[in-house]
């Protein structure tokens, strides 16, 4: 059971207080009717399922009920950090850019 620092409460709490809300920063197509079934299916069903550093969302359901971003290593459970959704997005995009250039 790991600890998460809630960026809204400013407190570090046990995993028990939070609920996992899946992979972070998945953009919903702004014009769903304009994409084909395959693209829409990717959005609904396909996930990165990364072994290693992964951006996910957690919600502080037992307290402030805010959703925030966590960068966690799914293999070692190391947590690189937690951020508000807004703050984390820039870091997430930078990580994705690095991945593209690999």
């Amino acid at each position, binding site marked *: *059971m*790991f*600890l998460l620092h809630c960026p809204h409460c400013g407190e570090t709490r046990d995993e028990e207080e939070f*609920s996992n*809300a899946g992979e*972070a920063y998945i953009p*919903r*197509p702004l*014009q*769903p*009717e304009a*994409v084909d*079934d395959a693209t*829409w*299916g990717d*959005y*609904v*069903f396909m996930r990165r399922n990364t072994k290693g550093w992964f951006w996910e*969302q957690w*919600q502080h*359901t037992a307290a402030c*009920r*805010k*959703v925030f971003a966590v960068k966690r290593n799914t293999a*070692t*459970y190391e947590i690189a950090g937690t951020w508000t*959704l807004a703050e984390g997005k820039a870091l997430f995009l930078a990580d994705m850019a690095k991945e593209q250039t690999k």
Partner: protein
Amino acid sequence: MSGSRVLQAGTRIDSTRTVNFSFDGRDYTGHPGDTLASALLAHGVRRMARSFKYGRPRGIIGAGAEEPNALVQLGTGALTTPNVKATQAELYEGLSARSTSGWPSLDFDLKSVLGQGSRFMPAGFYSKTFKWPQKLWPLYETVIRKFAGFGDAPAEPDPEDYDHLHHHVDVLVVGGGACGLLAALQAGRAGLKTLLLDEQNELGGWLLSDPNAQIDGRSSEAYIRSVQAALAEMPHVTVLVRTTAFGMYEQNLVQAVELLQDHIAPGQRQAHLPRHRMHKIRAHQVVLATGAIERPLVFGNNDLPGVMTVSAGQTFLHRYGVRVGQRVVICGTSDLIHDCAESLAKAGAQVTVADVRHSAVARNGSYTVMAGHCIAEATGGGEVKGVKLVPLHPTRDETTGAGSFLACDVVLSSGGLSPTVHLFCHDGSRPQWDESLAAFVAPHTGRKGVACAGSVTGAFELADALAQTTQAMQQVLAACGKTDTLPVPSCPQPRRLQPRPMFRLPDGKAEGAGAKAFVDYQNDVSAADIELAVRENYHSIEHVKRYTALGFGTDQGKLSNVNGFVITARALKRPVSEVGTTTYRPAYTPVSLGALAGTMSGELFDPNRYGAIHASHVARGAALEPVGQWQRPWYFAKPGEDLHAAVARECLAARNGVAVMDASTLGKIQIDGPDAREFLNRIYANAWTQLAVGKCRYGLMLDENGMVMDDGVTACIEQNQFYMTTTTGGAARVLNWLERWHQTEWPELKVWMTSVTDHWSTIALVGPKSRAVLAKLCADIDLSPDSFKFMDWRAGTVHGLPVRVFRISFSGELSYELNVESGYGRALWEAVMAAGAEFDITPYGTETMHVLRAEKGFIIVGQDTDGSMSPMDLDMAWAVGLKKPFSFLGKRSLSRSDTAREGRKQLVGLLPEDPASVLVEGAQIMESATVGAQNQMLGHVTSSYHSAFLGRSIAMAVVAGGLQRKEQTLYVHAHGKVTPAKVGSSVFVDLKGDRQNV
């Protein structure tokens, strides 16, 4: 006679007092401070078990948690505990224990007769043999289980209490031996909040078995006492004994179990204290001072009772005053064996040491040394009577001669020390093999947040261990912001002869040709079995483990694993460091389920939620049903009624007169904000733009795959405020869902959501006479049908209370749902019951609610749906607002090729041909009455009831292409019975929906 009690200074028993106990029906005496093992050994009792597969006699090998053989059933009745290690069972007055293997008895085990054919029962024997015929598997299982031994689980409920305690500390020190004591002292003196744990009944660890150790000029006992006293004076230091840290988890969470009362006779235990306590510890720094466990050597017949480890010999002597034998043979690879030889000789034993090192010599004349020799095999029937000693090649693991026989009554062996690395490796990492130490060690630098201190790092000599501990603690203190310099305790450094690492002792024969040499005692795994596994091409150490069962038992390979890993490496002709270890997992030693549950058992297992009106229902004799965590009235039986009679009466009252139900548990979410309406349009399938203040609408909620995930009526309270209801079980999930979509996808929408489930009590007043009852209680709402229409809501005063009245219906009858602040719920309920008395008002529960809605074809999400039904599948296209400008959640998926295809399962009604036959929910539906290879399952029955109003059975079902099958007869299969039923509308009562409009 082998073991006996001797006069020994400095033991931990109280020889002035006697304790009576029994084992396998015989009475014995021991002393306070004894374990069951030490007390039995003192009486020369050695045979404790029969092995798992071969039924070979087994005895005590170790002195602590590493013991693989001496498992006993402790106590009787509700307090009986299986598989307690006799070496860990503290003796108390009246203790009663029995062996758990050997059938029909320990002395004569039928299985041992089979064991004579052990040549035919190597590793893999069970999985290769007991395969055919399949129908005999249950019999095989019963017989094999009986033969396998292991104790009995209690057959009565556990009468004892357990609890949990949480700690947040700066430093957790696991292990209270010399290094753990030092670490705790250093942490405590630096002012750090410290917790020290030890699994034994007192602090000291190996020092308790090594009285001659010297630390800072003090003997073992004096050192332990002085540190203990110093720790006791520091209020920020807590010491727990009989407490085993059994698992280490993320971010320095350690769980430990404290056995508070197992050492106390049941009649003397304190009722206000728990039996076991689980400690959940979050530490800024963890110090693992978990020590090392000695490995025995592997040689022929090394499993005979009377063959033990050297450290066991030392421990039984120095801690318990038990000399394990009179004519002792010790065989080993390091100077540890000479410490033991000296001690036993001083205690009056005749000792011969077979030292595998050619340059070894006796320290004094009290015992004999045969240098460059080892044991080829032990001999004896039932217990050890002698050994065959053979000369060794100086560098190769080979014999150089025929050897000689030596009679003895006990054999002690030592292959070296195996650091107890388990907690360090619970994160999935593996220990490193140190070739020079011949040991898998934890790193002396630990890792971030975790320090390793003492022999767990391979610092086996006390002086080295204390120095290394001090260095590690320096880092721990630094990590806690403390800069104190720590002095290293002084400790003599005796001169030691280099060890000669050996594992499987040679007997001059090919592996498997000589006497069986055991690696894992608990699972009867021999060295030959390991070589067999390698020959059968199992090359990963994890495969070797599973194939042979090496390390599987309750001892988890504490004595056997490292020997097994090395023998595997040699068979594979690969370095040990490459072969590695198997995975270390919690728990280090067994933990009772009670300790894990703590107080969360019985009534406290799961929270029970009760509505504000609950006491009224109990007073009226309602049977209750759990819905999620809520306790809801299920039905209200009158004297003499069963469920069916009560439900029939309740249903008729709801349709013909007036009935009332407590609907308070349904989820309620208040949605506020200028963008509330837009938000509803995005998360619901239907349209909300035109819903006026004072109006209600049934809302259908879809997931992004277009499948129905929840439903409920939502009302417009004010222009910018809506009151949403959800299913009882879906309330929390829906709130999470709404918040997540708002915060991650549409944060620009000005909308707020608040859970108000607990704030309102909801009383559903149902039936043709419901208006009349409400009129008696409410004067300020115009209840006439033209004014207060179906799907309107009004605020008013009912029974003097401010109430929102929703004219909505889940039964299809005229119905008013009264919403009042929950504190007034009970008062309003009783007022409704009183006002309805003249109309014979009938309270009803969830069962009747289910029947009434099914008669109207209303779905229950989670019963008639399973996450794979779209609104079209449910014949509810009317609830989908395809023209809404925003592509609401689930909309795009409705046009996915799979969601829009022909032949999907669709919701229909079923009327069994026999009106008295009630279909089984979940029953499979087919076109054929007979079951054959080509039959296709078309779907299943989702809801099924007897309808008292119709006087016949009804059912709802999902059937492939169901909406195209109206009037077709299909066959419903369940429990071997076949029932024909006709497909039709799922609305069985009042097809036009007139009754709710009166």
